[in-house]
């Protein structure tokens, strides 16, 4: 078993090394794939906070991801093209949407919560599809990637660097939250709500706070993803996206700090590789996911470094 800390360092170094080597070898597209991993890992890190640390199985995180993307797309279409100006708006959009959806959904627990978040996600999706102002189903192109002063964001490796730094920041924030008093209360809300109640802490407030932070991080990832593709569309809001975000987290290891990154890396690699193997590659993907759930609980990180240490 490899200690989780080492594994995390290896993941961080690997995710940095691959695009740097790719640039040296002139393989620009590999940089794009690595950027995708970093951004989806960031979105997964947001979900992981709610899911892994708070035990809130949200099947509607595509809503925050997509709304963050739309924040970037809509601002860009109105001429606001500076990333430092766009990001706070995307974070706030994701957070506020999570506040609204969470406030209602967290009145429920368990399987109700899963279905409710899924349904609210669909509601946002249908709204985006049928609201004509910003392209509806056709989506909204961002003709030139938004800017960050001092950097050329159109250069794949520089854009990767931005995504990578934001990913590290979000993971550092997650680690701090997990270790804080709030994080302990959140773990308590996951493991034993009744005891939490007994010491006078309301689960609802704790869970809602975690859900809002989670939505905000996923919203930021959405803005970056929009810039990666130079395009936003309702597909980002679809239930399949919610499912994929869940897959990243679980594939990597639920509640493990770098789990979503490991999961996203594996997923993106598989998608890229299996797509070339067969037209019916999604069958293979399904089979693999099934195998992970049945036989490799704890995901990649659980497989390599064993069950989490209980703190």
């Amino acid at each position: 078993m490899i200690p989780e800390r080492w594994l995390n360092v290896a993941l961080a170094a690997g995710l940095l090394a691959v695009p740097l080597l790719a640039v040296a070898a002139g393989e620009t597209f590999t940089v794009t794939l690595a950027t995708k991993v970093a951004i989806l890992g960031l979105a997964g890190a947001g979900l992981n906070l709610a899911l892994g640390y708070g035990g809130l199985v949200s099947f509607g995180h595509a809503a925050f991801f997509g709304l963050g993307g739309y924040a970037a797309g809509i601002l860009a279409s109105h001429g606001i093209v500076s990333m430092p100006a766009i990001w706070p708006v995307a974070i706030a959009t994701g957070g506020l949407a999570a506040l609204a959806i969470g406030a209602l959904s967290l009145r429920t627990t368990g399987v109700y919560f899963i279905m409710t978040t899924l349904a609210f996600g669909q509601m946002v999706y249908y709204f985006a599809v049928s609201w004509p102002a910003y392209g509806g189903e056709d989506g909204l192109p961002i003709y030139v990637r938004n800017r960050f002063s001092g950097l050329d964001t159109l250069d794949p490796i520089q854009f990767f660097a931005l995504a990578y730094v934001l990913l590290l920041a979000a993971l550092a924030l997650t680690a701090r939250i997990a270790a804080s008093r709030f994080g302990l209360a959140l773990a308590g809300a996951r493991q034993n709500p009744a005891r939490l109640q007994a010491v006078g802490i309301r689960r609802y407030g704790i869970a809602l706070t975690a859900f809002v932070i989670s939505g905000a991080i996923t919203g930021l990832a959405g803005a970056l993803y929009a810039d990666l593709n130079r395009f936003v569309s309702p597909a980002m809001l679809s239930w399949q996206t919610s499912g994929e975000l869940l897959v990243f987290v679980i594939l990597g290891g639920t509640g493990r700090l770098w789990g979503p990154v490991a999961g996203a890396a594996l997923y993106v690699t598989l998608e890229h590789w299996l797509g070339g193997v067969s037209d019916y590659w999604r069958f293979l993907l399904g089979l693999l996911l099934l195998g992970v759930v049945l036989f490799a609980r704890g995901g990649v990180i659980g497989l390599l470094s064993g069950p989490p240490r209980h703190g």
Partner: protein
Amino acid sequence: MPRSVRCSALSASLLAEQVLNGLQLGVMLFLMAAGLTLVFGVMGLINLAHGSLYMVGAFACAATAAATGSFWLGLAASLAAAAAAGALVEIAVLRRLYARDHLDQVLATFALILMFSEATRWLFGSFPLYLDVPRSLAGAVELPFGIRYPLYRLMIIGVGLAVALGLFWLIGRTRLGVRIRAGEADREMIAALGVDIARLYTLVFALGAALAGLAGALVGTLQSVQVGMGEPVLILAFVVIVIGGIGSIKGALVGALLVGVTDTLGRALLPSALGAFMEPSGATAVGSAIASMLIYVLMALVLVVRPAGLFGARA
């Protein structure tokens, strides 16, 4: 020439017809929701692949009807195929997940959706299949108050209500029903009583799957039989059981009818209602946008008042 959209006052017979349409959609959703809610109530399993069983039913019906020329044989095949697929999946995969948390169940059944969809595409190709109503049920009938309504849709309403009654009878009055209710209340208890719980679970799952397959076959004649047809219905069925209360057949029925009628009337009435305040093309766009969100608003309202749904026993 100036164009105008005729703003007709809504006639009573049109309204009645739309209510019937809502009931028909509701009854169809009930067939889906009943299986979902039963499986959750008894085994505590959330099954995203329920929509795939619906698709299996539709494809089995279309393929059999095409081969034999008989819709009724197709209907029987849909029940058999969906039940068999359900039982197979239960035995091979899902029974390992009863003791797991919902998260694992969600992921595993998400994986099953991918596999079912691609396997169906591999077997039947990427083009939609043909399935039509049997000749004996084609056409429309005159109802009182000048309503003309398709006979086939009336039959769906009838079948759905009959299935609802059958389920109430099954669960309330039979030995199997006693075991199902016991299984919901206390799993160890009925195992201790010597009931083969593994067989009971497979049976319940196959029953739920058969209902989904039936819904798929019945609706397949009205719609397009194609890969991916199950997921939109699945999500509506989720809304239904959240509103009705998970585990409750009565809740599934009431929730399904509520969702069916709300959705249909919203789509039919909202755009023209908004037309009173706005110019027509804007009103239709905004009206349709709001109508598409209406059932989710309904769900939110129910959650505010009763977080466990209208008839939910446990949250």
